[in-house]
């Protein structure tokens, strides 16, 4: 009886996880254009997106309410254009897209911290959709509910949920044309003359060997995936990244300002939470799109690593 029940559940989970991989591929490879509503931090914004899929993706995201701003992505180059014509060019190292609230479930298995299941069907922007739930097994991470087009697996709607199933942020297409290649004019800035600033490249270098710091008791499932150090010799900052496969938390340890008072602060907006405190000569900052409990637990568990110190690459 137990085995009979377990079979379909596992199959459903496998199907749902396959859908997530298909979603990631669809977002990158398909041509589409549409408008979507983005609810975050107690407000709703409307945006229009143009996407040309392929080996070198090209995307353009335009705000439809308030002053006109836009983001152009051409492969790994991302240009953010403000209403006054000023633009900042970023090199998008991860090559990720512009749509918000897209969980990256393709690069690594989610592990044991999430249940993935198909929870029903719906209709979004005129498309029939399957609903996939990515549900965390504890309160140290957020969950997702995703609406995927039944035909292409393109993401039509995404919500981020806390442990009480409350919606923290969401986006939803309200009109969408899948398979329609945008015109060239729809993939370039609306303004012809821009004063552009190139954002400085990251000055962080990956550490060789063990970091000087560690989180002694991270929440279950979180493991160190990256340890970096700032190249600024006079104020070196160590940057650790912990991840459970879906959620990531960064920890920065840096010399404190001479005149800074001892202070512990917590800041948050939407899904993002930031915990900062000072201790001795150092300032610690823990941040990520995770619940308050997670950044707090990790902040309170930072300690010296007993392993040999690392060198920057």
């Amino acid at each position, binding site marked *: 009886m137990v085995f009979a029940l377990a079979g379909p559940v596992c199959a459903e989970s496998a199907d749902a996880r396959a859908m997530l991989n298909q979603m990631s591929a669809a977002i990158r490879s398909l041509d589409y254009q549409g408008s979507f509503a983005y609810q975050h931090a107690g407000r709703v914004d409307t945006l229009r997106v143009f996407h040309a899929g392929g080996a070198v993706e090209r995307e353009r995201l335009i705000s439809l309410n308030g002053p006109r*701003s836009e983001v152009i*992505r051409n492969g790994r180059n991302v240009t953010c254009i403000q209403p006054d014509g000023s633009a900042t060019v970023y090199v998008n190292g991860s090559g990720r897209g512009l749509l918000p609230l897209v969980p990256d479930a393709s690069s690594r298995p989610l592990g044991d911290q999430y249940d993935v299941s198909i929870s029903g069907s719906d209709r979004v922007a005129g498309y029939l959709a399957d609903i996939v739930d990515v549900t965390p097994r504890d309160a140290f991470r957020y969950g997702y509910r995703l609406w995927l087009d039944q035909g292409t697996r393109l993401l039509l709607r995404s919500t981020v949920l806390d442990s009480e199933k409350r919606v923290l942020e969401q986006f939803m297409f309200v009109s969408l044309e899948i398979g329609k290649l945008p015109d060239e004019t729809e993939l370039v800035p609306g303004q012809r003359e*821009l004063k552009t600033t190139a954002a*400085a490249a990251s000055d*962080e270098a990956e550490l060789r060997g063990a970091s000087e710091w560690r989180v002694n008791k991270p929440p279950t499932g979180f493991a160190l995936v990256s340890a970096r150090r700032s190249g600024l010799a006079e104020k070196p900052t160590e940057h650790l990244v912990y991840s459970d496969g879906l959620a990531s938390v960064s920890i920065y340890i840096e010399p404190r300002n001479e005149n800074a008072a001892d*202070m*512990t602060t917590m800041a*948050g907006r939407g899904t993002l939470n930031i915990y900062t405190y000072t201790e001795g000569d150092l300032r610690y900052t823990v*941040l990520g799109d995770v619940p308050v409990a997670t950044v707090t637990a990790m902040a309170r568990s930072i300690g010296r690593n007993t392993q040999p110190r690392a060198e920057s690459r």
Partner: protein
Amino acid sequence: MSQQAREHLSALMDGELSREETMFLLRNVAHDQTLAPCWSNFHAARQILRRQELLIVGNDFANGVLARIEMEALPQAVRQGSWLRWASGGAIAASVAVMALVFSGPRGDMSSPGDATLASSKPSPAVSTLAQPKPAEFRPPMISPALDVQPASAATSGFASQNTPIDPRLQSYLVRHYDAAGSSGQSGLMPYVLLIVPSQQQSAEIKADVSSEQR
């Protein structure tokens, strides 16, 4: 725009103007449309030198700051004055990475990390003449940040108002966080969408939570 006006803006960035001088200058800015872009350029220069990405200063910053100064209640003057000091200091950039580009059509990769570094080394006549390096850490005293997460201070609840700007250090951390997470194969989507939605200064509902513990 006079050289004196530029120098006053520079002093404002460094937190060297008195409250009265600050209000006088900001009123001038409100009537002189050339000063606001100059202020924005100063910020861009410094942020790039300090490798603190993004932050485009809105041209209407003067009105916002004036309003904030005038809202300062006297009993809180000590605390908020200290914030102004906290929010100031540092050097005006000796060089700036501002390039005038003309978008004329579809482009291939426009820049690489190397390009960005190269751009950072290009001098800006407008700013280089004002270069006065100072050792203190820079904190822009006013801003309409693209990622306007609101810091909550343990020491004062007023500090955590919706108009409180985010520490640019945190903005830099956020950019690095998403970059590092993405490079590690994790879900590290840089929320570029947040860079172009309208300012949240007036409308965001902040869930900043204040704690006041000392470790």
